[in-house]
Structure formats: C-alpha cells, structure tokens
C-alpha cells in the first residue's frame, strides 16, 4: 500500500532529487532554439530541440546580459546551466546560465546581426571616414610577426618607395582575444607612437579564422581611432566588419601597401613636370614683354630721336624771328614818333624861335616884357636875339592899333 502524497509533495521531492544529482547541476546541452520568447523583464523562455525530443529552457535576464549573440529560432547553440523542476507547473527545465552559438550558420547570423547593429549606429558612415594623407610620414602595421603578410607589405612598400618609415605592432590575428590585441595595436599607434596611417592585416582563412575582425571591440577601436585605419583582411571576396568600419578597405595586404604609399618615381616626376611648366611660363612671360619692347624701340621716332629736338628748334627759331620783327616794328614806330616830337619841340622851343629871327624882350632885370604897359619912356630894355643881347632905351610906344601913347 502506497502512501498518498500531494502533488506539491511529489514535485518538491522530485526537485530535491534533481538537486542531489551532481550530473544535473552543471550540464552543457547542444540543440536548436525554438519557440523563443523574450519578456519585458528580460527573461528568456525557449525550447531546445534535436531531431527526437525537446527541452524547456529559461534564461534569466541577469544571465542573459552575458550573451555575445542574440538568440533566434533555428540557431544551433550550446547551453550551460542546471536542470531543475518548477514545482508549480511540475515541469522540469534547463536553467541556462550561459549560451554559445555554434557552427558557421550561427557565425554568419551573428555577423549579420552585428553588422546591422553597427550600421544603424553609424559606424560605417562615409562622412566619418578619414582621408588618407598622400605622403604619410610613417605607417603602422598591426599584424602577425610571422607569416607572409608582413613580408608582402614590406616588399611592396620598399619597391614603390625605397627607404620608407614603417613600424610593426606584432599581434595575434586569429583565435580568442586576438581582437583585443589588434585593438591595442591601434591604440598604441594613436597614443604611444603616432603614425599617419594604420594598417590592420591578416591573410585569408575561414570565417572562424577571420572572426576577430568581426568582433565589436575591434570595430569600436577602429571607429575611435583618430588616425586613418586601413583594413587588409583575407581574400579579395571576404568582408569583415572591420572592413566596413575602416577608413579604407584593401582586398589584400599587398593591395593595402600599394594604396598607402605613393610611387616615389611618379612623385618626383610630377614635381619635375610642375617645375618645367613654371620655368616655361616664366620664360614666356619675359619673351612677350621683350617683344613688346622691341616693337616700341623699332618705331621711327626711336630711330631718330634728335628729330624731335630739331623740329622744336626750328619752331623756336621761327617764333624768335617773329618776335624780333615785332619788336623792331615797335621800335621804329616809337622812333618816328620820337622824331616827330623832337621836331615839334624844336619848333616850339624858344631857342628855335630865336633862330628864325624872333627876339625876347626883357627889362634890365631880366623880366620878360609882354605888354607895352611894362615899359616907360626912357626905360632900359634888353633884347635877346639869336646870337646875343642888345641893350636899349624906350623911345616911345604904341598900342596895337597904332595909336601913339608916348
């Protein structure tokens, strides 16, 4: 006869049994996610299944934050945790502490997911990409110190520009933690030994091999770099997240070397060409001006410059002549006038009058007598004539009508 127990008692019992079993306290289950549901609380409910059976799973939000991928239906995963029973429902389930996506399909899914996320955040935006300097003063390469990648890069750079300044930061480029090393290399070239271009490079491989270049840590390190980063990962057709974030993507490491360093010969040639163009332009300018000058010099007036002076002298002479003639004419006119005046003066001059026979009558004191009233009978008078003086005495006088007064 069995004891009757309650449902709760049975479920509690089973829970205790599960708890005692060491095997169930730490399991790793492989399966495919289905019926995935994430509540607002952040707790995740789903089932793991294989071809024959299903298992209920729950992952609390406190564990869920640790996930490095977003769980989706159809994903193949490995889930770690413990198995126990939820007493209330009588259902046993896997309490998941951590999960890992497995297989290439899962990797591609993770890749697409992260790519979408970062693209939406703007990490791939063209406007954020920095232009590469034409002639960088130095270049930093983050890559494995062994292998052909670094050798190829050195060879290409040396061929294009012998004597170029190249620094190498050795780093793992695959396996766990490689993304942290590469990010450290980028940080190094930003902060410790600044270069003008950074190249992160590795050879070809599977998606797992290239995985560090798909990691978010590396993507953010590339985005945060103040120095332009060139990604040179794998084969021509592979694209990693680093390629999208980088300022420039090169299909191969050798291609990266070609893109970052100019060919010394062509740069020198460019400078020579510009130098020649300058010299020619300068020569041409001088030639044009010389020709203009020659034209001016060859003008007739420049050949006989004296002509101008001669013409001026001629003109001056003519003018001088005119002036001379004019002055002469004036002088002559004055001369004539002068002579006329002279003759007039002579005629009017008392001395001239005397020459003609007139005389000047005056008393014996020299006063000139102009009226008969000025003399009396017997008065003494003088007469000045042409050649001397005659003295006399008044014997009588008459007025102009002939009437005798004395």
């Amino acid at each position, binding site marked *: 006869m069995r004891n009757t127990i309650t449902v709760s008692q049975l479920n509690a019992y089973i829970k205790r049994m599960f708890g005692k079993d060491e095997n169930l306290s730490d399991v790793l289950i492989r399966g495919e996610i289905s019926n995935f549901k994430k509540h607002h609380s952040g707790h995740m409910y789903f089932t793991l299944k294989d071809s024959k059976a299903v298992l209920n799973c729950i992952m609390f939000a406190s564990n869920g934050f640790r996930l490095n991928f977003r769980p989706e239906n159809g994903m193949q995963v490995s889930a770690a945790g413990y198995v126990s029973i939820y007493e209330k429902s009588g259902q046993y389930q896997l309490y998941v502490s951590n999960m890992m996506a497995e297989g290439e399909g899962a990797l591609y899914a993770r890749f697409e997911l992260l790519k979408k996320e970062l693209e939406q955040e703007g990490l791939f935006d063209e406007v954020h990409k920095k232009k590469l*300097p*034409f*002639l960088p003063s130095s270049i930093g390469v983050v890559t494995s*110190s062994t292998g052909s990648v670094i050798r190829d890069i*050195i060879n290409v750079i040396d061929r294009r*520009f*012998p*004597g*170029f*300044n*190249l*620094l*190498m*930061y*050795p780093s793992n480029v695959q396996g766990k933690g490689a993304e942290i090393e590469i990010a450290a290399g980028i940080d*190094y070239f930003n902060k*410790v*030994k600044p270069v003008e271009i950074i190249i992160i490079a590795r050879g070809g491989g599977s998606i797992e091999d290239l995985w560090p270049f798909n990691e978010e840590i590396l993507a953010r390190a590339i985005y945060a770099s103040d120095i332009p980063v060139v990604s040179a990962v794998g084969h021509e057709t592979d694209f990693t997240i680093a390629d999208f974030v980088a300022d420039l993507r090169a299909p191969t490491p050798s291609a990266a070397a070609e893109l970052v360093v100019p060919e*010394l010969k062509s*740069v*020198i040639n*460019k*400078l020579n060409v*510009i*130098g020649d*163009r*300058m010299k020619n*332009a*300068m020569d*041409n*300018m*001088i030639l*044009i*001006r010389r020709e203009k000058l020659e034209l001016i010099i060859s003008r007739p007036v420049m050949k006989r410059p004296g002509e101008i002076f001669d013409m001026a002298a001629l003109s001056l002479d003519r003018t001088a002549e005119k002036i001379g003639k004019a002055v002469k004419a004036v002088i002559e006119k004055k001369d004539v006038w002068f002579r006329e005046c002279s003759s007039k003066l002579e005629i009017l001059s008392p001395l001239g009058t005397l020459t003609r026979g007139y005389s000047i009558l005056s008393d014996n004191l020299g006063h000139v007598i102009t009226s008969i009233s000025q003399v009396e009978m017997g008065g003494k008078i003088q007469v000045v004539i042409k050649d001397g003086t005659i003295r006399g005495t008044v014997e009588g006088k008459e007025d102009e009508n002939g009437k005798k007064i004395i």
Partner: protein
Amino acid sequence: MEKKSFETLMKELEDMVGKLENGDIELEKALSIYKKGISIIENLNKKLVDAKKQITEVEKNE
C-alpha cells in the same frame, strides 16, 4: 611650410603654375610667384630624399 601637407603644397603649386601660364599678371608679381614655387618644389624634393629606412618591430612594453 613644414606644417602643410604634401597634397596642400602640390595644390598650391598647381595654382601658381596656372597663374603664370595665364600670363595676365605683372612681371614683378610673376617673378615673386615663380621664386616661391621653385622654393616649394625644392622643399618637397628634399622631403622625399630625406625619408629614412626604418622597419621597426615595436616593443609592446613601452
């Protein structure tokens, strides 16, 4: 001139040559542009020649 990048200086050279080839400037100004241009070219040539050979593996513990 040390601060200006190679590309900036190349662009300045192109502008200068353009002005000289145009010919529409005074002789004295042209001569001054020419002298400056030749000086920039000499400077750039020197930069190319001075590049030192150094392929260095970096010490991580620096």
